[in-house]
């Protein structure tokens, strides 16, 4: 009997020792795609070589419907990692308000770092409503207009880049009923029609940023309270533009996702997408297929830079971390020049740092990958989303009106945008009441 007790005791001691080891080491969750796992592995090994006194292990984020759900579950279960890379910028405010993130600006060296990495606009964008910064701007994937240049060259339209008029004119010329069954089967473009909030990040929102030169959706009134800021001519013009594309059948209303990629199959000639598509197209394109990346279409007469949505994903430290300073030291290795270049090489995603397109350090990579150069140039003119706990609902409200106006033509752009703004104001008001 005694030997069983000894065996049990040894087992428990072993578990405890392991647990103690685990609690001493920092945990770094990365995204679970192959490129980012390799990135995490390389930098974790490098850290372990240089800082054996601060053990750190990486782990791809557990599988789930979305990484946002997994992070939420881990926050609720208090099983958050110390460091998480790939936090959608729109989620940060909610976690910041719940006080589960470390305010990074309280860590030694952070202010100097952020001022060197980002311009003042980006710093403003990532600063939370309480004045602290909870995220390290890490990577972006600017949304641009991809064009099948062969198909578009045959049209008598000026562009790309396109204005709303030249783009719709291209649509008029390009749409076709190829098999003569009375239904259009070749369109100028396709963008997801479902009224799901995040789909607006890839059609309405980048077009809105382009038209408005990067204006926010929400703004603070003189009392410091958030209110809708998109009831303006820019948003109305975007809705009208998209409504025309659908009404005239220049864009496909039906879901094309069940078939072969419609861009590669020449069923559409343009799409709004990010740099991740380049790798896919290079891998699967037919011989002779050619394409280019251009800024998003803008209203006629638009001057100045063309902004777009950058789909920023950032790095955060959770407050369960016992050694935030060490975690911050590790993060610095991910986002210095060699770290950013390695991210580009392994994943094709762009680091969010100023002057990326002209920085000589990144020039050899961009020269070697000319398809990515337009995206690198676009990184100068990108925005994330507004800092609000209810930003998902804001996009959901816009989505509802988008569907009614743009897809089903049941509302005028003016009334759809006004209704959306009114609903957002009600939402923000009710959130304040509950607060």
């Amino acid at each position, binding site marked *: 009997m005694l030997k069983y007790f000894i065996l049990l005791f040894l087992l428990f001691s072993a578990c405890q020792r392991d647990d103690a080891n685990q609690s001493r080491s920092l945990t770094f969750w990365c995204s679970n795609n192959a490129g980012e796992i390799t990135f995490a592995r390389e930098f974790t090994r490098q850290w372990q070589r240089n800082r054996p006194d601060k053990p750190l292990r990486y782990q791809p984020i557990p599988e789930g419907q979305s990484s946002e759900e997994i992070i939420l579950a881990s926050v609720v279960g208090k099983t958050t990692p110390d460091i998480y890379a790939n936090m959608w910028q729109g989620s940060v405010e*909610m976690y910041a308000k719940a006080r589960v993130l470390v305010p990074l600006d309280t860590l030694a060296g952070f202010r100097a770092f952020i001022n060197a990495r980002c311009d003042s606009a980006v710093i403003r964008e990532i600063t939370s409503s309480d004045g602290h910064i909870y995220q390290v701007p890490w990577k972006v994937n600017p949304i641009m207009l991809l064009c099948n240049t062969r198909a578009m060259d045959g049209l008598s339209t000026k562009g790309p880049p396109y204005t709303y008029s030249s783009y719709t004119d291209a649509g008029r010329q390009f749409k076709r009923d190829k098999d003569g*069954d009375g239904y259009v089967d070749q369109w100028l473009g396709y963008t997801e029609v479902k*009224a799901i909030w995040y789909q607006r990040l890839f059609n309405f929102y980048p077009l809105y940023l382009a038209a408005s030169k990067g204006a926010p959706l929400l703004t603070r009134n003189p009392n410091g309270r958030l209110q809708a800021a998109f009831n303006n001519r820019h948003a109305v013009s975007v809705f009208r533009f998209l409504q025309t594309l659908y009404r005239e059948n220049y864009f496909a209303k*039906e879901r*094309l996702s*069940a078939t072969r990629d419609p861009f590669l199959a020449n069923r559409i000639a343009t799409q709004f997408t990010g740099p991740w598509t380049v790798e896919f197209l290079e891998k699967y394109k037919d011989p002779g297929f050619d394409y280019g990346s251009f800024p998003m279409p803008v209203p006629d007469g638009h001057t100045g830079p063309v902004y777009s949505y950058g789909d920023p994903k950032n790095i955060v430290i959770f407050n369960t971390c016992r050694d935030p300073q060490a975690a911050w030291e590790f993060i610095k290795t991910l986002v210095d020049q060699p770290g950013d270049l390695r991210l580009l090489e392994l994943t094709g995603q762009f680091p969010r740092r100023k002057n990326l397109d002209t920085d000589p350090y990144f020039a050899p990579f961009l020269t070697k990958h000319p398809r990515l150069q337009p995206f690198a140039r676009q990184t100068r003119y990108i925005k994330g989303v507004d800092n609000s706990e209810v930003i998902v609902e804001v996009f959901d409200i816009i989505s509802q009106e988008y569907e009614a106006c743009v897809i*089903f033509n049941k509302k005028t752009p003016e009334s759809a945008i006004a209704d959306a703004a009114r609903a957002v104001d009600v939402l923000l008001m009710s959130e304040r*009441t509950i607060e």
Partner: protein
Amino acid sequence: MKKLLPYLLVSPYLLHVAVFVAFPVVFSVVLTFHSWNIISPMQYVGLANYERLFNDRLFWQAIWNTLRFLMVHIPLQILLALMLAELLNRTVRGASFFRAAFFLPVIVSGVVVTILWQQLLSFNSGIINRMLTAISLPRVAWLDDPAVAMYSIAVMATWKNVGLYVILFLVGLQSVPEQYYEAADMEGATSWQKFRFITLPIINPTIFTVVVLSTISGFSLFIEPYIMTEGGPMNTTLSAVMYIYKQAFQYYHMGYSATLGFCFALIILFVVVIQKRYVEQEV
């Protein structure tokens, strides 16, 4: 010890009920008076969630959508199930094959069936529209037209579930004593008269069971619109359960979601009580 034994024996069940039934019910009622996003502490908001519910146009649209679904789904399901059961109750060659075939969709995963139907109903490449085009009829936007989408889902859900109700009706039909039909034959009753005056009254309890079961399963409509249409187009397929889910797991409004769930449970209770009072007597 002898006195304690019965309590000891029922304690696992009581524990199960306490943890998995009583606690969630009480907790969700408490939640209806709070605002809670899972990660921040709960805040007492009094009746604010109830006030919001009565002004929430989308919730009432979701309830109306669910009722529209039920208005097509329940009659269609009962008629089809009764018809098929009546056919299978006769001495048909390969009857056991047909029974298995009708039951097959019931045991296939709802997600698989839904994805399959999504392909069948696709506007451009769906086989149903291809068949329509082949006979020179116009294509129908089965899942993309706000006027049609919910009815397409109702037909699909009927196809998926009818097998279960066929079996229930078959059991009911087989319990009708053969002598009644023989007596009716001797009196010269027609097939319709035999069905109306013998079969229907005897299988009345089965009909009531089927109505209640399909009402409750219809009220819990979720997988089909979630996968096929995600509540669109224009929220016309947004079911009440889907809306409750969205509030809870998309916006993390746990308090408001609990309020919606609580109100929805009362609506279901009301409908079932009405059904019990009238359907049971009418049939």
